C-alpha cells in the first residue's frame, strides 16, 4: 500500500496547525500582525503583541510540535519493537517515573525555587524509572520481561505519587500537583521548549535509526538477526530513545495520554502495516494531534480549565474501546 501523499499531507497539516496554534488565544491577534511580531519583533497596533507571540504563543506551539512528535514516534517505535499494537510510550515506566519526579518537586517545594526544578526532577524520575526497568528486565531480556518490568515500575511510581499527594498538607500544592498531572502546554517558557528540544531531538533521531530493525523484526528475532540486525543495539536505541523523548515530554507537560497509542494505530493501515515505514508519519501525526488538541483546549478553555491531557484521554479512551471491539471481531472471524 504505497501512499506517497501521506507524508506531504501530514507535513502540511502540521504546518497549518502550528500556525493555528500561534494564532489561538484570548488576545485576538491577526495572522499578519502575529507573524510580524513573531519574526521582526514589531507591531503596529499593540506593543504587548510581541510579548504574547514570543513569550506565550511560540513556546506553546513549539512544545505542541515537539511533544506530539515525541509521543507519536515513541509509540510507533515501541509497538514495532515489542511487536505489540497495544504498547504505548508509558509502558517502559518513563511516564510514571517522570510524573513522580515532578510531583516530588512540587511536594517538597523545590518547584517554587527555580523554573527548571520541576522539569529536571521529572527527568531524573523518568531516567531512574527506565534504569530500574532495564535492571529488572536484564541487559538482554526480551520484550515480555521488558513489559513486565515496565508494568511493575509504573505501579510502584503510581503508588509513590499517590502517597506524595495524600501526605501533602498544603492544599495549594495538592491542587498544583493535580493540575500538573492532568497535562498541559500552558504557561511554559522558551526555556521549557529548549529543554524539551534538547532531549527530544536526539531521542527522536535514535528512534528513527531503528526503522530497519523494526522491519526485520516483523519476521521474529531469529530471522531479524539472520538479516544482519543487531538486536541488542536496537533495544538500547528504542528504550533510550523513548526514555529521552517521553521523559522530556512528561517532565515539561505532564501526562498527555493516548497520543502514542492512537496515532500509530490510525496510521498503520496507511503504510501497509510496515513498522519501519510507520515511524515518520507517526511523528508527524502525533505533532498534528497534539497541536490540534491544544488549539481545541484553548478555544473551549475560556470558561474553565480543560486540560490538554484530559482532552487527549477523552478522545483516546473511546478509541481504545473501539480497538478492543475490533480485535474481538477479528478473533471471532
Amino acid at each position: 500500500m504505497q501512499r506517497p501523499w501521506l507524508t506531504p499531507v501530514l507535513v502540511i497539516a502540521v504546518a497549518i496547525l502550528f500556525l493555528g496554534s500561534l494564532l489561538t488565544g484570548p488576545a485576538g491577534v491577526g495572522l499578519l500582525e502575529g507573524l510580524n511580531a513573531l519574526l521582526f519583533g514589531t507591531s503596529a497596533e499593540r506593543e504587548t503583541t510581541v510579548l504574547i507571540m514570543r513569550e506565550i504563543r511560540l513556546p506553546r506551539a513549539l512544545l505542541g510540535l515537539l511533544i506530539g512528535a515525541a509521543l507519536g514516534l515513541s509509540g510507533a517505535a515501541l509497538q514495532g519493537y515489542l511487536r505489540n499494537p497495544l504498547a504505548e510510550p508509558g509502558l517502559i515506566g518513563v511516564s510514571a517515573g517522570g510524573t513522580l519526579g515532578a510531583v516530588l518537586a512540587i511536594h517538597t517545594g523545590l518547584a517554587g525555587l527555580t523554573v527548571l526544578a520541576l522539569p529536571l526532577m521529572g527527568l531524573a524520575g523518568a531516567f531512574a524509572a527506565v534504569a530500574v526497568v532495564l535492571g529488572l528486565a536484564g541487559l538482554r531480556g526480551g520484550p515480555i520481561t521488558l513489559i513486565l518490568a515496565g508494568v511493575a515500575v509504573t505501579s510502584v511510581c503510581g503508588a509513590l505519587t499517590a502517597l506524595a499527594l495524600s501526605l501533602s498538607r498544603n492544599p495549594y500544592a495538592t491542587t498544583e500537583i493535580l493540575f500538573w498531572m492532568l497535562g498541559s502546554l500552558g504557561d511554559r517558557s522558551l526555556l521549557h521548549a529548549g529543554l524539551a528540544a534538547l532531549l527530544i531531538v536526539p531521542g527522536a533521531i535514535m528512534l528513527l535509526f531503528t526503522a530497519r530493525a523494526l522491519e526485520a523484526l516483523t519476521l521474529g528475532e531469529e530471522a531479524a538477526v539472520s538479516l544482519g540486525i543487531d538486536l541488542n543495539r536496537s533495544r538500547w536505541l528504542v528504550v533510550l530513545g523513548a526514555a529521552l523523548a517521553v521523559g522530556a515530554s512528561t517532565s515539561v507537560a505532564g501526562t498527555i495520554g493516548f497520543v502514542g497509542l492512537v496515532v500509530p494505530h490510525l496510521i498503520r493501515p496507511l503504510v501497509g502495516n510496515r513498522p519501519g515505514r510507520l515511524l515518520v508519519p507517526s511523528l508527524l501525526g502525533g505533532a498534528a494531534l497534539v497541536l490540534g488538541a491544544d488549539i481545541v483546549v484553548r478555544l473551549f478553555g475560556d470558561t474553565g480549565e480543560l486540560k490538554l491531557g484530559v482532552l487527549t484521554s477523552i478522545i483516546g479512551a473511546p478509541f481504545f474501546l473501539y480497538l478492543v471491539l475490533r480485535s474481538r471481531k477479528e478473533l471471532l472471524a
Partner: protein
Amino acid sequence: MKLEGRNLAVSLSGRRVLLGVSAVCDAGELVGVIGPNGAGKSTLLKTLAGVVVPDAGQVLLDGADVSGLTRAALAHRLAYLPQSRTVHWPVKVEALVGLGRLPFHGFAIELDVADRAAVAKALAAAQVDHLAKRLTSELSGGEFARVLVARALAQEPKILIADEPSAGLDPAHQLALFRHFRSLAEGGMGVMVALHDLSAAARFCHRLVMMKDGAVLADGAPTDVLTPVLLKQAFDVTAVRAEIDGIPVVVAH
C-alpha cells in the same frame, strides 16, 4: 560456496546443547539434518547460520571464519529460515519478501530497482508471484511456507538453511517444497534442512547428518545413515528402509 562447522560447542541457559559437532554443507548439495526432538538440530542450524554464537569451535565460509564478517556481509551469502513462522504484522507478500533485501541497504527501508528485480525473481522461483499483492494474514499454510522461502531467496544466498520448513504442510506441499529445495541445490546452492520426515530425507537429500544428544551420530549418504541399527540408536524405534516403485520409504514399527 562451502559452509563448515568445526567442533561446535553451544550451551543455552547453562545446558550443553551441542558438544564437538562438525557438519558441512557444500555448494550443490541438499543436506538433511535428522534426529529426535532435543537432539540439537535447531541449535546446529542456528549456529551455522550465525544466529547463535558458539562457545567453542568455528563456523567457516569457504575456509574463512564467519566471526570476521559483519552480520550484513554474512546475510549476503547465507539465508536462514527459522522454525517459527510467525509474522507479527499483516504486511503484503511482496513487502515481506522484500525484507530479504534489508542486508543490502545501509539505513534505507525502501527497495531500489535491483532489489525489486531480486524480489520478483524470488517470488517467481517460489511460485508465489500471483500472491504478491495479498496480505500474509490471508494465506493458507502452504502458500505461507512458500512465501517465507521466497523471502530467503530474495537474499540471493549461496547457502540456504531451513529449520523444519515442511512442518505442518500437507503431502502435496511437502513434496513441492522438497522438489524446490532439490532443484535449488542442483542449481548450485548449498541447502541444509532439518526435517522429521525420514522418507523425504531418504528420497530428496544428497547427504544426511544424524544427531542425538547434541552430537553427530552419523554423517553420510541416506542409504548409509538410515540403517536399522542407527535408526534404533537415534530414535529408539525399530525401523526399516524399503523401496516402493523405486522410491525409498522409512517406516517405524
